[in-house]
């Protein structure tokens, strides 16, 4: 694979605070994503994983400054791109799903109107055609009775159903790259499993590439072919899922694995025990 076939190519990305040259948040991150590839971007809160995915969308907060490096989506440079160029890329080349579907959806507009708006922002289609597409999309993400529910408001849906609406909106322009930032973290495990199954089907059918951002390495491993472990603004380990899970190279990856409760975890022993570096790595006094 050459760099040009890649759906996403990030090279030596450095990001910091605009107001303070001393503060660097991403320290030279590089990453390449092939068509149809799924990468799990894993790390604790504050490791930089969300900042990285927002930067790919060109949505980093105004106080944040891309200092050097490049982000190319389908060969097009995102860093320094004009808003009009970013608007062409967003929707059709890349789209994002966020953690909290309630605060990402507009509470005073029907979900149909919001999906129609997303479709018409990126393609020249009539309102009626966009509405038909919205109904089809709601059906394909498993929202029941889409002909009726298309006119419902976000509060009329459960958390899991709202996340399905967000997913419908994200895939409405058939993006090549889907950025999913903790899309199931606010949901309970049963709903989470169903949303993961839906994502799996959609990604498979549509041949999308995915960056799946999560703090849960077990969840990432169930969905992704590759795992990139981030810590303090750096990718500290990358590899095929099976290898990272079975034979982690970085002590931080071991700590992430040892922190998970599985059905085999010995209830008589503290979590993270046997991970020599866990205390230092997590920076917390673990009693």
């Amino acid at each position, binding site marked *: 694979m050459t760099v040009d076939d890649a759906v996403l190519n990030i090279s030596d990305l450095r990001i910091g605070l605009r107001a303070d040259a001393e503060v660097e948040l991403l320290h030279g991150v590089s990453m390449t994503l092939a068509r149809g590839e*799924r990468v799990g971007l894993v790390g*604790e*809160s*504050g490791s930089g994983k969300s900042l990285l995915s927002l930067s790919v969308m060109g949505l980093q907060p105004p106080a944040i400054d891309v200092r050097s490096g490049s982000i190319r989506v389908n060969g097009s440079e995102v860093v320094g791109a004009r808003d009009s160029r970013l608007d062409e890329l967003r929707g059709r080349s890349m789209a994002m799903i966020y953690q909290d579907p309630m605060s990402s959806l507009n509470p005073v507009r029907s979900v149909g109107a919001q999906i129609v708006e997303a479709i018409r922002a990126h393609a020249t289609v009539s309102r009626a055609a966009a509405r038909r597409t919205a109904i089809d999309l709601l059906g394909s993400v498993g929202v029941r009775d889409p002909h009726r529910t298309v006119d419902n408001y976000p509060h009329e849906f*459960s*958390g*899991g*159903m709202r996340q399905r609406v967000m997913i419908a909106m994200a895939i409405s322009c058939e993006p090549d790259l889907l950025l999913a930032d903790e899309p199931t973290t606010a*949901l*309970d*495990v*049963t*709903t*989470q*499993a*169903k949303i*993961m*199954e839906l994502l*799996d089907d959609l990604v*498979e059918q549509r041949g999308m590439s995915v960056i799946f951002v999560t*703090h*849960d*390495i*077990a*969840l990432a*491993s*169930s*969905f*992704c*072919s590759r795992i990139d472990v981030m810590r303090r603004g750096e990718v500290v380990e990358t590899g*095929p*899922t*099976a290898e990272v*899970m079975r034979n982690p190279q970085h002590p931080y990856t071991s*700590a*992430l694995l*040892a*922190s*998970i*409760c*599985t*059905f085999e*975890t010995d*209830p008589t022993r*503290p*979590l*993270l025990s046997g991970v020599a570096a866990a205390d230092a790595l*997590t920076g*917390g*006094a*673990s*009693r």
Partner: protein
Amino acid sequence: MTEPLIEVDGLVKDFGSVRAVDGATFSIMPGETFGLVGESGSGKSTIAAMLLCLERPTAGEIRFRGTRIDNLAPRKLLPIRRDMQLVMQDPVSSLNRRKTVRQIIGLPLSLHEGLSGAAREARIVELLDLVGLPASFVERYPHELSGGQCQRVSIARSLAISPEFLVLDESVSAVDVLMQAQILNLLNALQKELGLTYLFVSHDLAVVRYMCTRIAVMQGGKILEVSDREQIFSDQAHPYTRALIAASPASLAARAAAEATPHLSPTGGTDAS
């Protein structure tokens, strides 16, 4: 034979026409961690609120050390409230962001224990130490703390008046897995040290299994079964218990690892959202 600390008998709670809890019966023994697991809306938190006398049951009885508490007048609840405390899900929003850690932990000490001055300060430092935070944290505000540190402060506040019984309502659901592991370790260590009894409420059965000796599985307001930790895997386990096991990230990961492809397998049995 030891008497249960808490006995719940035929508990019912209606909100208007909705029956949130439908005939819950179980007991919690002193020193144990009793698990309540189920998805959003199953009635777990409503049961927790009734145990803490924050909601009155529509029907049924709750006994604490053999005494009925569900029908007590508010002022008679005060001594019982000292014995039971709550640790909430969101550690950041459950702390007053305009107060320092000293004020947050100090308030219950002044109110309930009548402590002031040096005695109060010494107890605050002792509580911080108990939850693994340095004494220097007394001056800090919640926004100067990480999510995990906020949850430790929240636990220290709950322990300030030396309760016997703690309700942990999704207390680790809002923090990342590393924090979660450390908070779970802390809770287990505190239980040993202080002889606490826990009601542990969560939607994640893998976490509940790790923490709890006995587990009640809830769905649609009903307790489907109460079983010992190891029984949840038995053939006699309720189909919904098996669905909860199958939906856990740990199980998703194990299934994916077992397959040649790194993709998901269908998650059987988790119908209706």
